[in-house]
Protein backbone atom coordinates (compact mmCIF):
# COMPACT_ATOMS: atom_id res chain seq x y z
CA UNK A 1 0.00 0.00 0.00
CA UNK A 2 1.50 3.28 -1.15
CA UNK A 3 0.76 6.74 0.10
CA UNK A 4 0.45 9.77 -2.15
CA UNK A 5 0.58 13.12 -0.40
CA UNK A 6 -0.76 16.14 -2.30
CA UNK A 7 0.19 19.55 -0.93
CA UNK A 8 -2.49 22.06 -1.88
CA UNK A 9 -6.08 21.74 -2.99
CA UNK A 10 -6.30 24.37 -5.69
CA UNK A 11 -7.14 23.52 -9.28
CA UNK A 12 -3.94 21.45 -9.76
CA UNK A 13 -3.89 19.71 -6.34
CA UNK A 14 -7.60 18.94 -6.25
CA UNK A 15 -7.51 17.51 -9.77
CA UNK A 16 -4.46 15.36 -8.92
CA UNK A 17 -5.94 14.06 -5.68
CA UNK A 18 -9.39 13.25 -7.00
CA UNK A 19 -8.14 11.47 -10.13
CA UNK A 20 -5.44 9.60 -8.25
CA UNK A 21 -7.98 8.37 -5.70
CA UNK A 22 -10.41 7.35 -8.42
CA UNK A 23 -7.76 5.37 -10.28
CA UNK A 24 -6.03 3.90 -7.22
CA UNK A 25 -9.22 2.91 -5.39
CA UNK A 26 -8.94 1.77 -1.81
CA UNK A 27 -5.72 -0.14 -2.36
CA UNK A 28 -3.63 2.97 -1.75
CA UNK A 29 -3.81 6.10 0.32
CA UNK A 30 -4.24 9.66 -0.94
CA UNK A 31 -3.60 12.47 1.56
CA UNK A 32 -4.37 16.11 0.81
CA UNK A 33 -2.71 18.79 2.92
CA UNK A 34 -4.09 22.28 2.56
CA UNK A 35 -4.40 25.19 5.00
CA UNK A 36 -7.84 26.18 3.67
CA UNK A 37 -11.03 24.42 4.64
CA UNK A 38 -12.77 25.71 1.54
CA UNK A 39 -12.31 25.02 -2.13
CA UNK A 40 -12.52 28.16 -4.24
CA UNK A 41 -13.36 28.53 -7.93
CA UNK A 42 -10.93 31.40 -8.35
CA UNK A 43 -12.05 32.58 -11.83
CA UNK A 44 -15.38 33.67 -10.36
CA UNK A 45 -13.79 35.74 -7.58
CA UNK A 46 -13.90 38.80 -9.82
CA UNK A 47 -17.68 38.56 -9.76
CA UNK A 48 -17.58 38.46 -5.99
CA UNK A 49 -15.37 41.54 -6.19
CA UNK A 50 -18.07 43.56 -7.93
CA UNK A 51 -20.88 42.22 -5.78
CA UNK A 52 -22.35 40.03 -8.52
CA UNK A 53 -21.88 36.86 -6.48
CA UNK A 54 -21.50 36.06 -2.81
CA UNK A 55 -18.60 34.19 -1.31
CA UNK A 56 -20.84 31.15 -0.83
CA UNK A 57 -21.39 31.00 -4.59
CA UNK A 58 -17.70 30.42 -5.29
CA UNK A 59 -16.56 28.19 -2.40
CA UNK A 60 -17.56 24.92 -0.74
CA UNK A 61 -16.13 22.97 2.23
CA UNK A 62 -13.55 20.38 1.18
CA UNK A 63 -13.92 17.98 4.10
CA UNK A 64 -17.25 16.33 3.15
CA UNK A 65 -16.16 15.92 -0.46
CA UNK A 66 -12.87 14.28 0.51
CA UNK A 67 -14.59 12.14 3.09
CA UNK A 68 -17.01 10.78 0.52
CA UNK A 69 -14.16 10.17 -1.92
CA UNK A 70 -12.05 8.42 0.69
CA UNK A 71 -9.27 10.99 0.59
CA UNK A 72 -7.46 11.71 3.84
CA UNK A 73 -7.78 15.46 4.32
CA UNK A 74 -5.51 17.40 6.68
CA UNK A 75 -6.27 21.07 7.09
CA UNK A 76 -2.65 22.04 7.56
CA UNK A 77 0.14 24.05 6.08
CA UNK A 78 3.15 22.20 4.65
CA UNK A 79 6.30 23.47 6.32
CA UNK A 80 9.13 21.37 4.99
CA UNK A 81 10.00 18.40 2.82
CA UNK A 82 12.44 15.70 3.88
CA UNK A 83 12.87 13.68 0.71
CA UNK A 84 15.58 11.44 2.16
CA UNK A 85 13.85 10.80 5.47
CA UNK A 86 15.85 11.34 8.62
CA UNK A 87 18.36 9.58 10.78
CA UNK A 88 17.16 6.07 11.36
CA UNK A 89 14.55 6.06 8.59
CA UNK A 90 14.79 6.30 4.82
CA UNK A 91 11.12 7.02 4.40
CA UNK A 92 10.61 10.52 3.06
CA UNK A 93 8.15 12.72 4.84
CA UNK A 94 6.74 16.22 5.03
CA UNK A 95 6.15 18.22 8.19
CA UNK A 96 2.86 20.02 8.40
CA UNK A 97 1.33 22.49 10.83
CA UNK A 98 -2.40 22.26 11.36
CA UNK A 99 -4.61 25.30 10.75
CA UNK A 100 -7.92 23.62 11.51
CA UNK A 101 -9.70 20.42 12.43
CA UNK A 102 -9.27 21.45 16.10
CA UNK A 103 -5.54 20.81 15.93
CA UNK A 104 -4.46 24.38 15.19
CA UNK A 105 -0.76 24.92 15.73
CA UNK A 106 0.11 21.22 16.11
CA UNK A 107 2.84 19.91 13.85
CA UNK A 108 3.05 16.45 12.39
CA UNK A 109 5.26 14.40 10.13
CA UNK A 110 3.48 12.70 7.27
CA UNK A 111 5.46 10.09 5.37
CA UNK A 112 4.90 9.63 1.68
CA UNK A 113 5.79 7.35 -1.18
CA UNK A 114 4.90 9.95 -3.72
CA UNK A 115 4.56 13.69 -3.21
CA UNK A 116 2.82 16.26 -5.38
CA UNK A 117 3.62 19.87 -4.64
CA UNK A 118 0.59 21.89 -5.75
CA UNK A 119 0.85 24.59 -3.14
CA UNK A 120 0.03 27.37 -5.56
CA UNK A 121 1.32 30.86 -5.00
CA UNK A 122 2.01 32.88 -1.94
CA UNK A 123 0.43 36.29 -2.54
CA UNK A 124 3.56 38.32 -1.98
CA UNK A 125 2.03 41.66 -0.99
CA UNK A 126 5.23 42.55 0.83
CA UNK A 127 7.17 42.89 -2.41
CA UNK A 128 5.77 46.41 -2.81
CA UNK A 129 5.73 48.69 0.24
CA UNK A 130 2.20 49.70 1.07
CA UNK A 131 0.61 46.94 -0.98
CA UNK A 132 0.13 44.68 1.98
CA UNK A 133 -0.03 44.74 5.74
CA UNK A 134 3.38 43.18 6.24
CA UNK A 135 1.95 39.76 7.03
CA UNK A 136 1.18 38.56 3.56
CA UNK A 137 -2.33 39.89 3.87
CA UNK A 138 -4.10 42.66 2.12
CA UNK A 139 -3.33 46.18 3.28
CA UNK A 140 -5.61 49.11 3.77
CA UNK A 141 -4.45 51.01 0.68
CA UNK A 142 -5.35 48.59 -2.06
CA UNK A 143 -7.71 45.67 -2.44
CA UNK A 144 -7.28 42.34 -4.20
CA UNK A 145 -9.50 39.69 -5.79
CA UNK A 146 -7.04 36.81 -5.40
CA UNK A 147 -9.06 35.02 -2.72
CA UNK A 148 -12.77 34.92 -2.07
CA UNK A 149 -12.33 36.88 1.18
CA UNK A 150 -10.24 39.53 -0.56
CA UNK A 151 -12.91 39.80 -3.22
CA UNK A 152 -15.65 40.28 -0.62
CA UNK A 153 -13.60 43.09 0.89
CA UNK A 154 -13.04 44.59 -2.56
CA UNK A 155 -16.76 44.61 -3.31
CA UNK A 156 -17.52 46.46 -0.07
CA UNK A 157 -14.93 49.12 -0.87
CA UNK A 158 -16.15 49.39 -4.44
CA UNK A 159 -19.72 49.89 -3.25
CA UNK A 160 -18.62 52.89 -1.22
CA UNK A 161 -16.82 54.37 -4.20
CA UNK A 162 -19.94 53.96 -6.33
CA UNK A 163 -22.04 55.60 -3.64
CA UNK A 164 -19.73 58.57 -3.52
CA UNK A 165 -19.87 58.79 -7.30
CA UNK A 166 -23.65 58.69 -7.11
CA UNK A 167 -23.52 61.71 -4.81
CA UNK A 168 -21.58 63.51 -7.52
CA UNK A 169 -18.05 63.11 -6.18
CA UNK A 170 -15.60 62.28 -8.94
CA UNK A 171 -13.90 58.95 -8.18
CA UNK A 172 -10.72 57.46 -9.54
CA UNK A 173 -10.28 53.73 -9.88
CA UNK A 174 -6.95 52.11 -10.62
CA UNK A 175 -6.74 48.44 -11.53
CA UNK A 176 -3.77 46.34 -12.55
CA UNK A 177 -0.63 44.81 -11.19
CA UNK A 178 1.16 45.93 -8.04
CA UNK A 179 4.72 44.99 -9.00
CA UNK A 180 6.99 44.66 -12.02
CA UNK A 181 7.07 40.86 -11.82
CA UNK A 182 3.38 40.08 -11.50
CA UNK A 183 1.50 37.45 -13.41
CA UNK A 184 -2.25 36.86 -13.57
CA UNK A 185 -3.02 40.04 -15.55
CA UNK A 186 -6.10 38.22 -16.78
CA UNK A 187 -7.84 38.55 -13.42
CA UNK A 188 -7.12 42.28 -13.27
CA UNK A 189 -8.28 42.61 -16.89
CA UNK A 190 -11.57 40.93 -16.03
CA UNK A 191 -11.96 42.99 -12.91
CA UNK A 192 -11.45 46.37 -14.59
CA UNK A 193 -13.99 45.57 -17.27
CA UNK A 194 -16.47 44.29 -14.72
CA UNK A 195 -16.07 47.51 -12.77
CA UNK A 196 -16.75 49.48 -15.94
CA UNK A 197 -19.83 47.35 -16.59
CA UNK A 198 -21.15 47.74 -13.04
CA UNK A 199 -20.44 51.49 -13.08
CA UNK A 200 -22.49 51.81 -16.26
CA UNK A 201 -25.30 49.75 -14.77
CA UNK A 202 -25.24 51.95 -11.67
CA UNK A 203 -25.33 55.02 -13.89
CA UNK A 204 -22.15 56.46 -12.37
CA UNK A 205 -19.67 55.79 -15.16
CA UNK A 206 -19.45 59.50 -16.03
CA UNK A 207 -18.33 60.24 -12.49
CA UNK A 208 -15.76 57.48 -12.32
CA UNK A 209 -12.38 57.57 -14.03
CA UNK A 210 -11.06 54.08 -14.56
CA UNK A 211 -7.41 53.50 -15.36
CA UNK A 212 -5.28 50.45 -16.03
CA UNK A 213 -1.70 50.04 -14.84
CA UNK A 214 0.34 46.95 -15.52
CA UNK A 215 3.80 45.50 -15.96
CA UNK A 216 3.03 44.21 -19.45
CA UNK A 217 5.17 45.59 -22.27
CA UNK A 218 1.99 46.18 -24.23
CA UNK A 219 -1.68 45.89 -23.54
CA UNK A 220 -2.81 42.33 -24.18
CA UNK A 221 0.52 40.65 -23.35
CA UNK A 222 -1.08 38.66 -20.48
CA UNK A 223 2.29 37.24 -19.53
CA UNK A 224 2.28 35.15 -22.67
CA UNK A 225 4.04 37.62 -24.93
CA UNK A 226 0.64 38.45 -26.33
CA UNK A 227 -0.81 36.28 -29.01
CA UNK A 228 -1.98 36.51 -32.55
CA UNK A 229 -5.47 35.37 -32.96
CA UNK A 230 -8.16 35.01 -35.53
CA UNK A 231 -10.79 37.73 -35.24
CA UNK A 232 -13.40 38.14 -37.97
CA UNK A 233 -11.24 36.26 -40.41
CA UNK A 234 -8.21 38.42 -39.72
CA UNK A 235 -5.19 37.47 -37.67
CA UNK A 236 -4.41 40.25 -35.21
CA UNK A 237 -2.23 40.76 -32.21
CA UNK A 238 -3.99 40.59 -28.87
CA UNK A 239 -2.59 44.09 -28.48
CA UNK A 240 -5.06 45.51 -30.98
CA UNK A 241 -7.82 43.37 -29.51
CA UNK A 242 -7.11 44.66 -25.99
CA UNK A 243 -6.42 48.27 -26.91
CA UNK A 244 -9.66 48.37 -28.86
CA UNK A 245 -11.63 47.10 -25.91
CA UNK A 246 -10.08 49.67 -23.58
CA UNK A 247 -10.65 52.47 -26.08
CA UNK A 248 -14.25 51.46 -26.57
CA UNK A 249 -14.77 51.66 -22.83
CA UNK A 250 -12.70 54.82 -22.38
CA UNK A 251 -10.18 53.19 -20.06
CA UNK A 252 -6.71 54.71 -20.52
CA UNK A 253 -3.68 52.62 -19.71
CA UNK A 254 -0.21 52.86 -18.22
CA UNK A 255 1.91 50.05 -19.48
CA UNK A 256 5.38 48.71 -18.64
CA UNK A 257 4.99 49.91 -15.07
CA UNK A 258 6.57 48.58 -11.92
CA UNK A 259 4.52 49.86 -8.98
CA UNK A 260 7.20 50.46 -6.36
CA UNK A 261 5.31 52.13 -3.54
CA UNK A 262 1.74 52.61 -2.42
CA UNK A 263 0.55 55.31 -0.08
CA UNK A 264 -2.98 56.03 0.91
CA UNK A 265 -4.68 57.05 -2.31
CA UNK A 266 -1.48 57.16 -4.34
CA UNK A 267 0.60 54.68 -6.30
CA UNK A 268 4.19 55.40 -7.32
CA UNK A 269 5.60 53.64 -10.31
CA UNK A 270 8.63 53.32 -12.54
CA UNK A 271 8.28 52.77 -16.26
CA UNK A 272 10.32 50.68 -18.67
CA UNK A 273 11.96 53.81 -20.04
CA UNK A 274 13.21 54.68 -16.57
CA UNK A 275 10.81 57.54 -15.95
CA UNK A 276 8.74 57.57 -12.80
CA UNK A 277 5.25 58.73 -12.08
CA UNK A 278 2.45 58.59 -9.61
CA UNK A 279 -1.22 57.98 -9.91
CA UNK A 280 -3.85 58.98 -7.41
CA UNK A 281 -6.84 56.80 -6.72
CA UNK A 282 -9.88 56.43 -4.54
CA UNK A 283 -9.99 52.69 -5.11
CA UNK A 284 -7.22 50.44 -6.34
CA UNK A 285 -7.15 46.72 -7.03
CA UNK A 286 -3.57 45.75 -7.66
CA UNK A 287 -2.63 42.09 -8.05
CA UNK A 288 0.39 41.18 -5.89
CA UNK A 289 3.34 39.26 -7.30
CA UNK A 290 3.33 35.53 -6.68
CA UNK A 291 6.03 33.67 -4.80
CA UNK A 292 6.36 30.03 -3.90
CA UNK A 293 4.59 28.95 -0.72
CA UNK A 294 7.91 29.13 1.16
CA UNK A 295 8.46 25.48 2.00
CA UNK A 296 11.87 24.35 3.15
CA UNK A 297 13.67 21.14 2.26
CA UNK A 298 16.20 19.16 4.27
CA UNK A 299 18.38 16.17 3.49
CA UNK A 300 18.88 13.13 5.64
CA UNK A 301 21.46 14.89 7.78
CA UNK A 302 19.12 17.79 8.36
CA UNK A 303 21.03 20.14 6.07
CA UNK A 304 18.95 22.80 4.28
CA UNK A 305 18.64 21.80 0.63
CA UNK A 306 15.86 24.27 -0.20
CA UNK A 307 17.92 25.91 -2.95
CA UNK A 308 18.49 22.51 -4.60
CA UNK A 309 14.82 21.77 -4.89
CA UNK A 310 13.33 25.24 -5.22
CA UNK A 311 14.34 28.22 -7.33
CA UNK A 312 14.94 31.55 -5.55
CA UNK A 313 11.28 32.48 -6.11
CA UNK A 314 10.25 29.41 -4.13
CA UNK A 315 8.97 27.41 -7.10
CA UNK A 316 10.01 23.78 -7.46
CA UNK A 317 12.50 22.59 -10.06
CA UNK A 318 11.06 19.94 -12.33
CA UNK A 319 12.17 18.46 -15.66
CA UNK A 320 12.49 21.79 -17.47
CA UNK A 321 15.75 23.13 -18.89
CA UNK A 322 16.72 25.75 -16.34
CA UNK A 323 20.07 26.70 -17.90
CA UNK A 324 20.01 30.50 -18.26
CA UNK A 325 19.91 31.41 -21.94
CA UNK A 326 19.41 34.61 -23.91
CA UNK A 327 15.86 35.31 -25.03
CA UNK A 328 16.31 34.26 -28.65
CA UNK A 329 17.67 30.86 -27.67
CA UNK A 330 14.59 29.99 -25.67
CA UNK A 331 12.89 26.92 -27.02
CA UNK A 332 9.53 25.33 -26.52
CA UNK A 333 11.50 22.19 -25.56
CA UNK A 334 12.85 23.93 -22.44
CA UNK A 335 9.46 23.58 -20.83
CA UNK A 336 8.79 20.65 -18.48
CA UNK A 337 6.85 17.66 -19.74
CA UNK A 338 6.40 15.34 -16.73
CA UNK A 339 6.79 17.77 -13.80
CA UNK A 340 8.93 15.24 -11.98
CA UNK A 341 11.51 16.79 -9.65
CA UNK A 342 14.97 16.55 -11.18
CA UNK A 343 16.57 15.13 -8.02
CA UNK A 344 13.84 13.13 -6.30
CA UNK A 345 11.88 11.02 -8.73
CA UNK A 346 8.97 10.52 -6.36
CA UNK A 347 8.27 14.26 -6.11
CA UNK A 348 6.24 16.14 -8.67
CA UNK A 349 5.07 19.76 -8.85
CA UNK A 350 1.86 20.87 -10.55
CA UNK A 351 0.17 24.18 -11.26
CA UNK A 352 1.76 27.39 -10.10
CA UNK A 353 4.15 25.49 -7.79
CA UNK A 354 6.49 24.32 -10.54
CA UNK A 355 9.30 26.59 -11.63
CA UNK A 356 8.91 27.74 -15.25
CA UNK A 357 12.24 27.62 -17.12
CA UNK A 358 11.89 31.23 -18.22
CA UNK A 359 9.23 33.83 -18.73
CA UNK A 360 7.17 33.77 -21.91
CA UNK A 361 7.05 37.50 -22.58
CA UNK A 362 10.21 39.18 -23.74
CA UNK A 363 12.32 40.03 -20.68
CA UNK A 364 12.69 43.75 -20.11
CA UNK A 365 14.47 45.96 -17.63
CA UNK A 366 14.23 49.64 -16.96
CA UNK A 367 17.48 51.66 -17.27
CA UNK A 368 17.72 51.47 -13.47
CA UNK A 369 17.87 47.70 -13.69
CA UNK A 370 14.36 47.02 -12.43
CA UNK A 371 12.98 43.99 -14.23
CA UNK A 372 9.53 44.85 -15.55
CA UNK A 373 8.00 41.88 -17.25
CA UNK A 374 5.04 39.68 -16.62
CA UNK A 375 5.79 36.17 -15.41
CA UNK A 376 4.02 33.27 -17.11
CA UNK A 377 0.48 32.38 -16.06
CA UNK A 378 0.06 28.77 -14.96
CA UNK A 379 -3.50 28.96 -13.81
CA UNK A 380 -6.81 27.49 -14.81
CA UNK A 381 -6.84 25.03 -17.64
CA UNK A 382 -3.06 24.31 -17.76
CA UNK A 383 -3.08 23.66 -13.98
CA UNK A 384 -5.85 21.14 -14.31
CA UNK A 385 -4.29 19.36 -17.27
CA UNK A 386 -0.90 19.19 -15.55
CA UNK A 387 -2.53 17.94 -12.33
CA UNK A 388 -4.29 15.16 -14.17
CA UNK A 389 -1.14 14.11 -16.06
CA UNK A 390 0.85 14.01 -12.84
CA UNK A 391 -1.86 11.90 -11.18
CA UNK A 392 -1.74 9.58 -14.15
CA UNK A 393 2.05 9.22 -13.91
CA UNK A 394 2.02 8.51 -10.20
CA UNK A 395 -0.78 5.97 -10.50
CA UNK A 396 1.23 4.17 -13.19
CA UNK A 397 4.35 4.31 -11.03
CA UNK A 398 2.46 2.85 -8.09
CA UNK A 399 0.81 0.16 -10.17
CA UNK A 400 3.65 -0.73 -12.53
CA UNK A 401 6.74 0.21 -10.59
CA UNK A 402 9.47 2.65 -11.45
CA UNK A 403 9.69 1.48 -15.07
CA UNK A 404 6.26 2.93 -15.76
CA UNK A 405 5.87 5.40 -18.54
CA UNK A 406 5.30 8.95 -17.33
CA UNK A 407 2.51 11.06 -18.77
CA UNK A 408 3.40 14.31 -20.42
CA UNK A 409 1.70 17.68 -20.42
CA UNK A 410 4.07 20.28 -21.80
CA UNK A 411 2.74 23.81 -21.83
CA UNK A 412 4.38 24.13 -25.24
CA UNK A 413 2.06 21.43 -26.55
CA UNK A 414 -0.95 22.44 -24.58
CA UNK A 415 -3.76 24.71 -25.63
CA UNK A 416 -5.85 26.70 -23.28
CA UNK A 417 -9.35 28.02 -23.45
CA UNK A 418 -9.78 31.18 -21.50
CA UNK A 419 -12.91 33.20 -20.98
CA UNK A 420 -12.29 36.69 -19.63
CA UNK A 421 -15.41 38.30 -18.31
CA UNK A 422 -16.10 41.89 -19.32
CA UNK A 423 -19.37 42.28 -17.47
CA UNK A 424 -21.95 40.04 -15.83
CA UNK A 425 -25.57 39.67 -16.87
CA UNK A 426 -27.65 37.01 -18.59
CA UNK A 427 -28.46 39.25 -21.55
CA UNK A 428 -26.29 42.30 -20.90
CA UNK A 429 -23.08 40.49 -20.01
CA UNK A 430 -20.03 40.11 -22.20
CA UNK A 431 -16.85 38.13 -22.12
CA UNK A 432 -13.86 37.66 -24.35
CA UNK A 433 -13.64 34.00 -25.22
CA UNK A 434 -10.18 32.99 -26.32
CA UNK A 435 -8.51 29.79 -27.30
CA UNK A 436 -4.78 29.66 -27.54
CA UNK A 437 -2.59 26.87 -28.86
CA UNK A 438 0.03 26.27 -27.64
CA UNK A 439 0.31 28.27 -24.41
CA UNK A 440 4.09 28.57 -24.71
CA UNK A 441 4.88 29.74 -28.24
CA UNK A 442 6.85 27.32 -30.36
CA UNK A 443 8.72 29.29 -33.00
CA UNK A 444 10.25 26.19 -34.54
CA UNK A 445 6.88 24.76 -35.33
CA UNK A 446 5.07 28.03 -35.97
CA UNK A 447 7.62 30.58 -37.15
CA UNK A 448 6.17 34.04 -37.00
CA UNK A 449 3.61 34.06 -34.25
CA UNK A 450 4.80 30.94 -32.39
CA UNK A 451 1.25 29.69 -32.25
CA UNK A 452 -1.18 27.96 -34.54
CA UNK A 453 -3.53 30.67 -35.75
CA UNK A 454 -6.08 28.07 -36.75
CA UNK A 455 -6.62 27.31 -33.07
CA UNK A 456 -5.79 30.68 -31.57
CA UNK A 457 -8.92 32.69 -31.70
CA UNK A 458 -10.71 35.42 -29.83
CA UNK A 459 -14.15 36.92 -29.81
CA UNK A 460 -16.07 39.15 -27.47
CA UNK A 461 -19.76 38.90 -26.85
CA UNK A 462 -22.61 37.67 -24.76
CA UNK A 463 -21.87 34.08 -25.77
CA UNK A 464 -18.59 34.35 -23.91
CA UNK A 465 -20.43 35.35 -20.77
CA UNK A 466 -22.76 32.38 -21.05
CA UNK A 467 -19.75 30.11 -21.43
CA UNK A 468 -18.05 31.62 -18.41
CA UNK A 469 -21.24 31.21 -16.39
CA UNK A 470 -21.69 27.62 -17.45
CA UNK A 471 -18.03 26.87 -16.71
CA UNK A 472 -18.53 28.27 -13.22
CA UNK A 473 -21.27 25.72 -12.47
CA UNK A 474 -19.58 22.95 -14.42
CA UNK A 475 -16.29 23.19 -12.55
CA UNK A 476 -17.88 23.50 -9.15
CA UNK A 477 -19.92 20.40 -10.02
CA UNK A 478 -16.73 18.66 -11.06
CA UNK A 479 -14.82 19.76 -7.97
CA UNK A 480 -17.64 18.47 -5.77
CA UNK A 481 -17.25 15.10 -7.51
CA UNK A 482 -20.92 15.02 -8.36
CA UNK A 483 -22.17 12.39 -10.84
CA UNK A 484 -20.38 12.52 -14.16
CA UNK A 485 -17.49 14.68 -12.89
CA UNK A 486 -14.88 12.71 -14.79
CA UNK A 487 -16.59 13.57 -18.07
CA UNK A 488 -15.91 17.27 -17.60
CA UNK A 489 -12.54 18.06 -19.15
CA UNK A 490 -9.97 20.17 -17.34
Amino acid at each position, binding site marked *: MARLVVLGAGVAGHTTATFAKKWLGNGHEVVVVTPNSLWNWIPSNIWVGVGGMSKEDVVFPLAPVYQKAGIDFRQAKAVSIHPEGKDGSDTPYVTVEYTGQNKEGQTEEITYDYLVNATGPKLNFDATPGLGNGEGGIGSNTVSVCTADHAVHASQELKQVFEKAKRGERQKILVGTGHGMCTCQGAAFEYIHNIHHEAEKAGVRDNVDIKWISNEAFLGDFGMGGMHMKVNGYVVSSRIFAE*SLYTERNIPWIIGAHVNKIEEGKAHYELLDGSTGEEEFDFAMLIPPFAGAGMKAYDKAGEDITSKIFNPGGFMFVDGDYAPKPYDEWKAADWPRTYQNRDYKNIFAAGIAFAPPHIISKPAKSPNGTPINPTPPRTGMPSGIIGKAVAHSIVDLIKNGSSAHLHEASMAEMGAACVASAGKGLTGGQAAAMTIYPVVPDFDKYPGTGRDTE*YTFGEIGLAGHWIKHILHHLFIWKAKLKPGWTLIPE
Partner: protein
Amino acid sequence: MSVEENFAKNSEFNLSMVPSKFASFMRTCVIWQFIRFVAINLKMIIVVRKSH
Protein backbone atom coordinates in the same frame (compact mmCIF):
# COMPACT_ATOMS: atom_id res chain seq x y z
CA MET B 1 -21.06 58.27 -32.18
CA SER B 2 -20.68 58.15 -28.43
CA VAL B 3 -17.86 55.60 -28.25
CA GLU B 4 -15.88 56.98 -31.14
CA GLU B 5 -15.47 60.21 -29.20
CA ASN B 6 -13.05 58.16 -27.15
CA PHE B 7 -10.59 58.51 -30.03
CA ALA B 8 -10.34 62.20 -29.30
CA LYS B 9 -9.79 61.77 -25.59
CA ASN B 10 -6.49 60.01 -25.72
CA SER B 11 -3.92 59.75 -28.48
CA GLU B 12 -2.99 56.22 -27.45
CA PHE B 13 -6.52 55.18 -28.37
CA ASN B 14 -5.71 55.77 -32.01
CA LEU B 15 -4.60 52.25 -32.84
CA SER B 16 -7.88 50.73 -31.82
CA MET B 17 -10.88 49.26 -33.50
CA VAL B 18 -13.99 50.57 -31.83
CA PRO B 19 -17.18 48.70 -32.62
CA SER B 20 -19.89 50.61 -34.41
CA LYS B 21 -23.49 50.51 -33.26
CA PHE B 22 -24.14 47.41 -35.32
CA ALA B 23 -21.14 45.49 -34.00
CA SER B 24 -21.97 46.48 -30.42
CA PHE B 25 -25.52 45.35 -30.90
CA MET B 26 -24.43 42.00 -32.31
CA ARG B 27 -22.31 41.39 -29.24
CA THR B 28 -25.38 41.22 -27.07
CA CYS B 29 -27.92 40.06 -29.68
CA VAL B 30 -29.25 36.86 -28.13
CA ILE B 31 -29.88 35.00 -31.39
CA TRP B 32 -26.51 35.79 -32.93
CA GLN B 33 -24.72 35.13 -29.66
CA PHE B 34 -26.38 31.75 -29.39
CA ILE B 35 -24.89 30.84 -32.74
CA ARG B 36 -21.51 32.14 -31.56
CA PHE B 37 -21.95 30.21 -28.33
CA VAL B 38 -22.13 26.97 -30.28
CA ALA B 39 -19.23 27.99 -32.51
CA ILE B 40 -16.95 29.01 -29.65
CA ASN B 41 -17.75 25.82 -27.78
CA LEU B 42 -16.73 23.77 -30.80
CA LYS B 43 -13.48 25.71 -31.07
CA MET B 44 -12.78 25.24 -27.38
CA ILE B 45 -13.50 21.52 -27.51
CA ILE B 46 -11.00 21.18 -30.34
CA VAL B 47 -8.31 22.92 -28.29
CA VAL B 48 -9.14 20.87 -25.19
CA ARG B 49 -8.82 17.67 -27.21
CA LYS B 50 -5.50 18.78 -28.69
CA SER B 51 -4.14 19.48 -25.21
CA HIS B 52 -4.60 16.08 -23.57
